[in-house]
Every structure is written in C-alpha cells, then in structure tokens.
C-alpha cells in the first residue's frame, strides 16, 4: 500500500473525485460512512443557469384586495451599460478568483433568481380595432397588465407609487410592478459572465434584484432605496454589490428595517459588525438566506444571523472566504444547509431537529486544512454530501469517522484493498443508488465498483457516467463494465445498471445549488444524472 507510483497514483485518486454523495439513512445511529475520495479541482466552466421553472405571469390582482399583502414588487436595479466610471475591473485579477465569482453568480444568484418581471410573451388582451376614433378613451389603462407594470417600473419610485391613486385599475399594477432601481452609473458593462440575467422576478411575488454599487455617493442612494423597499414591504431581495471585488462596502443599516423579507440573497458585501446593530434588527419572516461571498467581522456574526431568524429553513453559503467559516447550527427551523466553494473550518450541527439536508461542496481555492464536521442532534438528516475524506473530519454522534487509510496516496486500489477495508455498514445495508462520475474504465475504478456492487445488498441502481473520450463507444464501456462487475457469482442481480455518456462540460459543472433547496425532489443529486 505504500508503493508511491507518483503520477499514476495521483491519477488513480483523481478518478475518484466525483463520487456520489452519501445518503445517510434515516436511522441516525449508522456511524460508518463510506469514504469518498480525493477532491479534484473543480472544473470551472461558464455558467449556464438552469432556467427557473416558474414562468406564469401573475394574473391581475383584483383591485379589491387592496392592501392585503402579498405586496409590491420587485425590482431590478441596474442600468445601462457603458459607464467608464464603474469598472476598475481591468486591474490584474486572478483568473481563478474570477472563475470563483462566475461560479458564485451562476450557481447561486442566477439559479435562484425568480422569473422575469415583464414577459415579452405577454398576450395581447384587447386590441382596439382601429386607431384614431378612440382618442377620447383611456388607452393607457386598457393596455395589458404586463405592459403597465413595465411602464410603472420605469418611473422613479415615487412617481411609480403615485400611479396607485390614478384609478382602481392602477393599484394592483403598482403592487405587482417590478421596481427598477435604475441608476445608470451603477453597473459595469455586460461582461457575459457576471451580469444579471433578465429573468428577474417571479411575477406573482415581489422580488427585488438589486445590483448596486456602494461606492461613495451611491451608498446613500442605496440606503434610500432599501428604505423604500422596506416601506413597500418587499419580500424577496437579491442584493448584489458590484463590482464584486469591493468587499469593504458594508450594508447600510437601513437594510435591517426590511422586516417583511422572506428570501434574501446578499452578494459580495461586507456584513456590518453585528455588535453595533440595533437590538431589534432581525428578519422575523425570513425563510431562505443566501450569503454569497459576504465578508464578516467574525464568526459571532454568523451566529447572530442565525439567531435572529426564527423561521429560517434554507441557508446557503457560496464562495464564503472571510473569515474562515465556523458554523454552529442551532435552529429549530432549518431544513437545508448548503455550503459551496467556501473556506470552512468547522460545521457543527449542534441541535437542528428539522435539518434534512447538509450539502458541502469543495472549494476550488487553496486548501485551508482540515474541516471538522460534527453532527449532533439531527434526527431528520437524510442527506449529506459531498463527503471529502481528505479534508473532512466527520463526527457523527460520539463516533468519529476515520478515513486515514484512504487519505494517503494509496497505491494501487485493487479489489483486495477494498476487501481488506472491511465491511461498511452503510454500503451493505442502506445505499440504494450509486452514481459514479467520470468513469475512465481503469482497473482501480472497476475494483471499487466490483466491491461496491458485491457488498451493497440493497443497491438498486448503479449509474456510471463515463468520462469524455475514454471509450470509443458506449457499447465498449457497457460491455467492459458488465464483464467485470456482474461476472462473479456474488453479483447483485437486482441491481439495475445504467452506463451513460458524460454530458457536455457546462452541464457537469453546473450543480445549481437551488436543487438542494427544492424539497419536491427526493434526491437533488439525481439531477446530475441526465434522464
């Protein structure tokens, strides 16, 4: 086992990299968890955010439901493209860092954005048959809702609000119109990757997407916007600081007055030191929180954030870097926590009775050493992934899950190695689905699969995704796998085998984290497998 085959070994290790996540069985006492392997550097491909599914335009809000929330709407902030003042982007940047930003934007923000405020596919409801005879009629109010919202969205916010008193027709328009926080000098030009998609607002809700620049005077303006939004009772806010690298800009304090928020995403911002915040600062209705490259003073702030959100169910860190994250989860409402591409020191699930999913994805940044993950009271936990035995040190209840053996470059990982590794309870009696990514047909891979298939008694489905270019045909891959895996007499006959071609590159890299939040899917990871 000590044979150091240099590159070859490393390669063998590499092939293990995209192991499937581990599905922790309901029974919380199963301590042994199979080890997955060495994290390979994640390929950073340009984002192709999965289009959000909801596209229906909101029906017209009846004008009698006047002030009953759900409320106003939404906004997209931003602006026309060509403003030289805003782009200090030409300074030398680390391409890896750029890639990270792209990834943060694509996996979190773009994926999470609700659908567009104004549909270009809006149906025409009435068309006055001919023109000029109608000059005395109210042609404006006769336009379809979507167009009126479009028009109201273009008005300065106060002008927009005042349209509510024009007539009964207009109140629901104002209440559902996207607020456009329009400010030409705010954004750099369209740079394909880090721009905001047009898809902005779910028509029936009130998301606000604000890409803001917090430099100098803009900051006051942003503070004022936030105040307006608070007054309007906005429920969804995506606040993206641009250009992204100005992490020193902290949130204006008015931000904390937005008590109606249910969904909040903050990007590339500095969280204000929570010690200085007013005591009442809290988000009593917040259900989903995403912090994307949000810098904080210390981990006390993370605790603060979690403590003040009594109904928070979904929590997501993406591209978190400062400070090293030490997450301590004590929450009676959290159902899903996701941490992607972040520098994490420790994750302690102390008491989270409702937590169902804990998803930790590797960081493409330089390793920051060991990450301790301990799982205390989490009786509902069903899904934990991706476990990375090289960096993760997992503690479930009182038992440590050790993975030393596999940590060291292990030489030839042959079948014997796996046999010697001994029985792993989780594999033997719980794992029903194994998805093996990036299969290259090497012996070490086959050895592992053989071991797995032969020991996993309840395995129902084995999905093998072949690496691009390793097989001349799928038939070849198929026969190779079949010959090895199902030849022995211990072969599991109930297990269905599916050998797939690797999807095009973009798709492999686009784990859109919002899948993890989608509880309508039993296993969010199955998305990765093309149907």
């Amino acid at each position, binding site marked *: 086992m000590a044979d150091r085959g240099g590159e070859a070994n490393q390669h063998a290790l590499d092939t293990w990299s995209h192991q499937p996540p581990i599905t922790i069985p309901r029974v919380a006492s199963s301590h042994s968890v199979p080890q997955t392997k060495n994290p390979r550097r994640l390929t950073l491909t340009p984002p192709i955010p999965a289009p959000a599914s909801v596209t229906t335009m909101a029906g017209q809000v009846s004008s009698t439901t006047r002030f009953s929330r759900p409320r106003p709407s939404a906004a997209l902030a931003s602006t026309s493209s060509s403003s030289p003042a805003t782009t200090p982007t030409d300074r030398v940047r680390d391409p890896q860092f750029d890639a990270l930003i792209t990834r943060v934007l694509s996996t979190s923000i773009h994926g999470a954005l609700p659908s567009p405020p104004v549909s270009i596919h809006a149906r025409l409801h009435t068309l006055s048959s001919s023109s000029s005879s109608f000059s005395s009629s109210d042609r404006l109010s006769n336009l379809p809702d979507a167009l009126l919202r479009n028009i109201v969205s273009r008005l300065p916010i106060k002008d927009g609000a005042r349209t509510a008193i024009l007539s009964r027709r*207009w109140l629901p328009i104002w209440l559902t119109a996207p607020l456009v926080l329009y400010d030409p000098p705010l954004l750099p030009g369209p740079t394909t990757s880090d721009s905001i998609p047009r898809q902005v607002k779910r028509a029936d809700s009130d998301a606000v997407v604000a890409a803001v620049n917090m430099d100098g005077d803009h900051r006051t303006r942003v503070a004022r916007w936030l105040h307006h939004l608070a007054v309007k009772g906005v429920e969804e806010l995506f606040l993206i600081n641009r250009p992204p690298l100005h992490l020193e800009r902290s949130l204006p304090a008015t931000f904390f007055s937005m008590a109606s928020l249910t969904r909040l995403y903050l990007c590339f911002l500095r969280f204000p030191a929570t010690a200085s915040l007013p005591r009442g600062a809290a988000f009593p209705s917040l259900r989903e929180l995403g912090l994307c490259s949000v810098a904080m003073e210390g981990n006390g702030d993370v605790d603060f954030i979690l403590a003040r959100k009594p109904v928070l169910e979904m929590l997501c860190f993406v591209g978190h870097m400062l400070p090293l994250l030490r997450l301590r989860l004590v929450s009676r409402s959290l159902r899903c926590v996701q941490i992607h591409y972040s520098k994490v020191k420790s994750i302690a699930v102390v008491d989270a009775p409702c937590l169902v999913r804990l998803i930790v994805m590797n960081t493409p940044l330089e390793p920051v050493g060991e990450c301790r993950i301990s799982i205390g009271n989490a009786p509902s936990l069903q899904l934990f992934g991706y476990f990375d035995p090289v960096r993760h040190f997992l503690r479930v209840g009182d038992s440590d899950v050790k993975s030393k053996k596999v940590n060291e470059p292990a030489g030839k990982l042959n079948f014997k190695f796996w046999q010697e590794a001994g029985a792993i309870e989780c594999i033997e009696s719980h794992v029903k689905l194994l998805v093996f990514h990036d299969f290259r047909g090497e012996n070490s891979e086959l050895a592992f699969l053989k071991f797995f298939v032969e020991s996993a008694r309840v395995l129902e489905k084995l999905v093998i995704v072949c690496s691009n270019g390793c097989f001349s045909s799928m038939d070849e891959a198929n026969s190779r796998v079949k010959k090895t895996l199902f030849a022995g007499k211990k072969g599991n006959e109930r297990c269905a085998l599916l050998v797939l071609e690797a999807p095009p590159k973009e798709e492999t890299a686009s784990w859109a984290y919002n899948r993890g939040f989608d509880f309508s899917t039993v296993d969010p990871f199955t998305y990765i497998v093309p149907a």
Partner: protein
Amino acid sequence: MEVDKGKGEAEETRKVAEADRDTVTLKSSDGKLFEVSKEAAARLSTVLAGMIAGGSIDDNGTDLKQIGSEALENVVDYCNKHANSIPSAALISSSISFNTAPFKEPEEWERKFVDRLSHDALFDLVEAANFLGMERLLDVTCHKISEMMKGKSPDQIREVFNIKNDYTKEELEEIRQELAWAFYDD
C-alpha cells in the same frame, strides 16, 4: 449611431426588389401590404420569427388582422430603420442571454421615432409591438409612455391619458395614507 437613414431605406428597398425571398409581406387589418426584411422581422419580433421558422408566412401577404395599416407601417418602418442603423446590436431576444440592465435606453433615433407619433398612433404601436412580441420596440414605446408620466401629479396624468378616477373619496384617502412617503420629498 448616426446613419444616413435615407440611404439606408433606399438600400433596403433595392434589396427588397432584388431578392423577394429576403422579405416577408405583411397585410394589415385594412388590407394594405407591407414588405419587411425577413432578417429584421425575425430578429425583432418573436412572433414573426416563429411564423417564419414555422413556414406560416404567406407570400401574398401574411394577415395581421389585429394591426391597422398605420401601426403596421410604423412597425415596418421601425424594423427597416433598426436593420440599417444598428446592424450589430446584440438585442436579439433570447431567453438565455443575459442582460445587465432590465431595460435598455432607447437610441436617439428611436426616441425621435416615437416622439413624432400622435397619442393614438403611439398606443397603436405599443399594441402592435406587444402582439408581435417585439421586445425592443416595446421597450422604446413603454419608455416613451413612462416619460409622459414622469414628474406629473396624478391629476395631470389622468388628464393626459383620459383616466377616469373611480375611487371613492374614502378609498383615495386610505391609499394616500398608505403611500404617504410617495407624496413627500426626501
């Protein structure tokens, strides 16, 4: 973006004459025929693009019963001007393309284009653009309408657009209170 528009139009017409298949013929509700470059039509109108792709374009004039001749003339005029003045404009509406801004500012010529329209002609054009799925033209026309509303009091807006106030006094008062912040200056 200053372009010799006269020349552009002339070229466009010549092109139309040279290669008939490069254009589509559209028929207004009152039976008038208009020709528009197929490329521009497909690029600017999702509906026309769909019809062209789906082969449902009628060589003798595709019926657009919902659009009067004045509005259609403006639409066609707009398409041709657009085709000539911003050849490379990346304004193709694509559901996956990203746009930095939710709305693009109209170009100077587009402003002029809508400024010259009468009140009714403007609304005819909005409706036609909406019907044809012309995102960019909708941007331009909606922008124009918002300009007409900007900075005006509700009473002034009602007057300009003939909007009938159908609130009761009490309702109006209630809404005013709710939106009080919008009636004061910062």
